[in-house]
């Protein structure tokens, strides 16, 4: 990973929007030392709020979108740290370290990108679709348990992305899992690859489907992290040939065969 454009800066919460399904969208105004134009889809930032020592550690968030001097992140409440970050009001001060990690491979002319996202795992895929050059073939496939989990569909429509969704209970889109949507798309005759982000069981299913169909697959992992920058070695995932990879610096985006899920 190139760390040359990594910066550690103060930031202010500009907006905190309730998306439902325990998700909030935070827009942050970051100091100019962090060049938001350098953020690549799939990269993440470490965010910490203005509290003392509990929790101590910042939390990693994939970047959802950027504007000049601004970053957007999707905060899914899962524990104490994310509860506190999700509860930050407009004007609150946070710190941001980033951009961090290995991004998704950029779109390649002549290759269709199938983006498979589950629940709160959609931000890096959304940014990839948003940044794809005009004329790129990008299909966004978005799955959740029910309609309420599909927290970003309004944005997909606004950005005129090409997308399909599904829910396990059939309350939005087709009934089923994102792997069902993906399987239906894999019959496409031309070159294609899959980029995925979501819960580990979903990533496993996507990776094995791609392996069976001989389609290149990239996955974005989420693990607990302390530093986000490769110094603590706390976010290790197993490599199939032994040894470990750090989610923060070797990933979070890995080619499916690079890690044992």
């Amino acid at each position, binding site marked *: 990973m190139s*760390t*040359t*454009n*990594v*910066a*550690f800066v103060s930031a202010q919460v500009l907006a905190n929007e309730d998306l439902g399904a325990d998700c909030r969208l935070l827009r942050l105004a970051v100091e100019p030392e962090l060049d938001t134009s350098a953020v690549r889809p799939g990269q993440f930032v470490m965010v*910490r709020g203005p509290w*003392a*020592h*509990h*929790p*101590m*550690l*910042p939390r990693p968030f994939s970047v959802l979108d950027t504007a000049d001097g601004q970053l957007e992140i999707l905060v899914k409440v899962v524990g104490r*740290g994310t509860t506190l970050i999700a509860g930050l009001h407009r004007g609150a001060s946070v*710190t941001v*370290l980033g951009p961090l990690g290995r991004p998704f491979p950029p779109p390649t002319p002549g290759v269709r990108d199938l983006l498979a996202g589950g629940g709160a795992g959609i931000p890096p895929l959304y940014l990839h679709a948003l940044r794809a050059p005009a004329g790129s073939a990008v299909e966004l496939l978005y799955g959740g348990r029910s309609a309420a989990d599909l927290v970003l569909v309004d944005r997909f429509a606004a950005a005129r992305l090409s997308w399909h969704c599904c829910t396990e209970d059939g309350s939005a889109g087709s009934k089923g899992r994102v792997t069902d949507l993906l399987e239906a798309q894999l019959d496409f005759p031309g070159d294609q690859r899959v980029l995925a982000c979501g819960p580990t069981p979903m990533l496993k299913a996507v990776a094995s489907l791609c392996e069976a169909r001989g389609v290149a697959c990239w996955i974005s992992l989420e*693990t*607990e*992290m*302390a*530093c986000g*920058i*490769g*110094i*603590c*070695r*706390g*976010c*290790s*995932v*197993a490599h199939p040939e*032994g*040894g*470990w990879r750090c989610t923060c610096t070797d990933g979070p985006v890995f080619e499916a065969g690079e890690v044992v899920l």
Partner: protein
Amino acid sequence: MTVDLAMELCGVRFATPVLSASGTFGYGLETAAVLDPADLGGVVTKGISPLPRKGNPPPRICETAAGMLNSIGLENPGVEWFADEKMPPLRAAGATVVANFFGDDPDEYVSCAAALDKIDGVAALELNISCPNVAHGGMQYGTDPRLAGRLVSACRAVTTKPLWAKLTPNVTDIVAVARACVEAGADALSLINTLSGIGINVRTRRPRLGNLFGGLSGPAIKPVALRMVHQVYAAGLGVPLVGIGGITTGEDALEFILAGASLVQVGTATFSEPTAMLRITDELRQWCRELGAERVGDLVGTLKV
């Protein structure tokens, strides 16, 4: 008022008393984009062993109240890699380097010490007899004064560089281990390493760490660390102390200095704030001004009890 923050320990000059703690700052250059290692008192490296070491299975960290547990398991690519890959850029960066090292058995400790002794630019060695996370991480040496003394003595014989021994708090009598290390030839003592602990996920009823046991660090352990620095300083063993444990502010650092530490190391704070060591250094300078100390060294061990 200008304040002189420089400290000299066993002939090595440290520009400030604030160093990175082993295992929390990699090999000093991973965060170069946000922190120049030459601006620190020194870089204490992640633990180095004679041969590469894989480390423990994940999950390796879990957060706790005002701290965290880790069971990284001393993952590192070995001393040869350190010498070839990490020391040249560290030398070029002008960092003051203290090499933390360990081995699976006494022979490995000695061979690692001998290898580090030959590396140009390594200012001092920090002997890790205190990692709680692996079967042979040294804690069995660090909890037994006789074994600790023998190991220090064996390493002492193969290096002319200053030899620091890093002590574990997981003992009944820290002074006994400290004394044994000093009598065996340790030039300085670093204390403390992490406190042994576990965490439990109540939903799965499984340990929160892949290794079950981990080491507790962060502000939660600061009072324990201060107490041990005070006890060892009060024992008057005649060697300088390096205080470690939950330091996140200049005031924390000063507490350790008043208790008897000549240098301090900052660990977990770097994870929440990569530039914490620089802020702590600035705050320490302010505290020296406030206390009217022209040299930070004048404050060492000035606790009034």
